[in-house]
């Protein structure tokens, strides 16, 4: 813009509009401009977020990987796994933590900050941004947060000596996909309900927490009774865990077979997570549109 800006009041504010300028602008800042907001809104929590995102893996890996691991490795566990307990649980913990971060971001911030109290999505929608773009930006941001979480976690795992193959790096996109397979459907819920009535707490306690315990994070689900295994199969986290473990341990060709996943199963895991994610993204866009255009 080439308008001169006098520093004194009253400033010129209108009456100099050329249609072409607005045509160029009509699409607005799009999803990238939403990232600017989401970044800025996270800044006040950056220290605490960084602390928890580094602190949590340190604690988990110390207590489970090293502490519990020393028992597991020293007994039959070491033989049946064929690798250190740390390297067994690390990929699963990366997937689980990325999922927890994503779920948290897909509940209160969307319903309370976005739609109900601060109502920032309504403010966004008064600009050229469309409800779909807003939904897309919010979900893309959640995915980015998960990816950052997974990356930091992986770095801490590496410091603990838990990374045994280069393809362990694949844990980051896998964990992100697994996280979105749950977070995007939850975002649909958050964008739909008027009052959560304890729904978010229920999601955390009765969905995320059991998922963490029964998705093969700490032991293979084959240890579970048959009926509990079926539940694991429905859990996005189990699919992500299987994939993450495959990415980090399959190249080692462990004699225990840990980390080995057949091609069909591989595709099955990916398809399950992808379908949930895509459905969640599409439905979130739809709910945002319905709610913002009332």
């Amino acid at each position, binding site marked *: 813009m080439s308008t001169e800006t006098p520093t004194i009041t009253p*400033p010129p504010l209108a009456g100099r*509009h050329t249609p072409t300028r607005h045509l160029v602008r*009509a*699409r607005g800042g799009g999803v990238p401009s939403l990232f600017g907001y989401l970044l800025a809104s996270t800044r006040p929590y950056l220290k605490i977020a960084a602390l928890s995102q580094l602190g949590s893996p340190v604690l988990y890996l110390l207590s489970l990987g090293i502490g519990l691991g020393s028992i597991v490795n020293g007994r039959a566990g070491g033989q049946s796994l064929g690798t250190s307990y740390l390297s067994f649980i690390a990929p699963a913990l990366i997937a689980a933590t990325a999922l927890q971060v994503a779920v948290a971001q897909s509940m209160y911030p969307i319903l309370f900050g976005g739609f109900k109290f601060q109502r920032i999505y*309504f403010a966004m*929608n008064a600009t050229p941004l469309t409800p779909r773009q807003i939904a897309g930006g919010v979900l893309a941001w959640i995915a980015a947060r998960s990816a950052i979480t997974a990356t930091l976690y992986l770095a801490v795992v590496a410091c603990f000596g838990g990374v045994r193959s280069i393809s362990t790096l694949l844990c980051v996109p896998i964990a992100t996909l697994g996280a979105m397979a749950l977070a995007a459907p939850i975002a649909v819920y958050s964008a739909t309900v008027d009052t959560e009535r304890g729904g978010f707490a229920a999601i955390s306690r009765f969905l995320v927490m059991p998922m963490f315990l029964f998705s093969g994070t700490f032991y293979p689900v084959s240890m579970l009774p048959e009926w509990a295994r079926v539940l694991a199969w429905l859990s996005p986290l189990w699919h992500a865990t299987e994939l993450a473990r495959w990415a980090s341990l399959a190249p080692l060709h462990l004699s225990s077979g840990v980390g080995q996943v057949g091609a069909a199963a591989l595709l099955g895991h990916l398809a399950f997570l992808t379908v949930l994610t895509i459905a969640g993204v599409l439905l979130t866009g739809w709910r945002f549109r319905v709610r913002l255009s009332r």
Partner: protein
Amino acid sequence: MTSAERTAEPLIEAVGLSKRFGSFEAVKAVDFSVARGESFGFLGPNGAGKSSTMRMVGAVSPASSGRLRVLGLDPTVAGPAIRSRLGVVPQQDNLDLELTVWENLYIYGRYFGIPKRALRPKIEELLDFAQLSDRARDKVEPLSGGMKRRLTIARSLINDPEILLLDEPTTGLDPQARHVLWDRLYRLKHQGVTLVLTTHFMDEAEQLCDRLVVMDNGRIVAEGSPARLITEHVSREVAELRFGIDQNEVRAAEVADLAERVEVLADRLLLYVSDGEAVLRAVHERGLQPVSSLVRRASLEDVFLRLTGRSLVD
């Protein structure tokens, strides 16, 4: 309608515009148009359909039926293009409370796709306009209601809008903050920004609107300039008499012949007259002693009462 007075094509044109939510019809086939540079108001009580109309004009809420053109474009297909040229001040502030004043403006400008270089000077200008320059680096949360409102208005101007939509711009503000805000809006009006506002304050409508429509129950019940609405629908002056709650009804009959029209409210009588002082004397000559009385100019409040049988603010 007064379309003959206008030369240019209207910036906003609505014909038979309706909005339904399920079985509830919030806006019932309203017609109106707004010319460039005009200050146009929707006056009416809560629930009259003003905000629903504003959201349709703001190209965020699709019309249920009827025809609407904003800046010559159809909001159902050109929403983003229209919104890129509008400024919107919603009824409830939706600022980001955890960000600073400056960040709120900057990020909002980015939503419009305004380049970073262009935004910085623009923000300085708007902070100056909103009298918030010294609060630029402060978070929004602790600001007063009036300051937040001014920031919302500043934010709505970030894209040099051709039309500024203000939904209840001063509701909830103290009198001083309202006057500061009116002064800012008055400046915008003088700079040629087309203002479209809703209000249930008649003084606000009188201050800011060149022309307005009175809405009630989803319908437009009158249209015109504030002065014309008053001359068309009510007398020049109003004598207000208070006889005490249980007396008003009885006394109304005794003074009815003195006025063009008498309204009996819960707490007072309104006598619509051309010369209030003369009528007041006549009332006293009849030996009637109201507890209190006053004479005032007729206002839009009286117009609304006349048209709907109810007062604007319950």
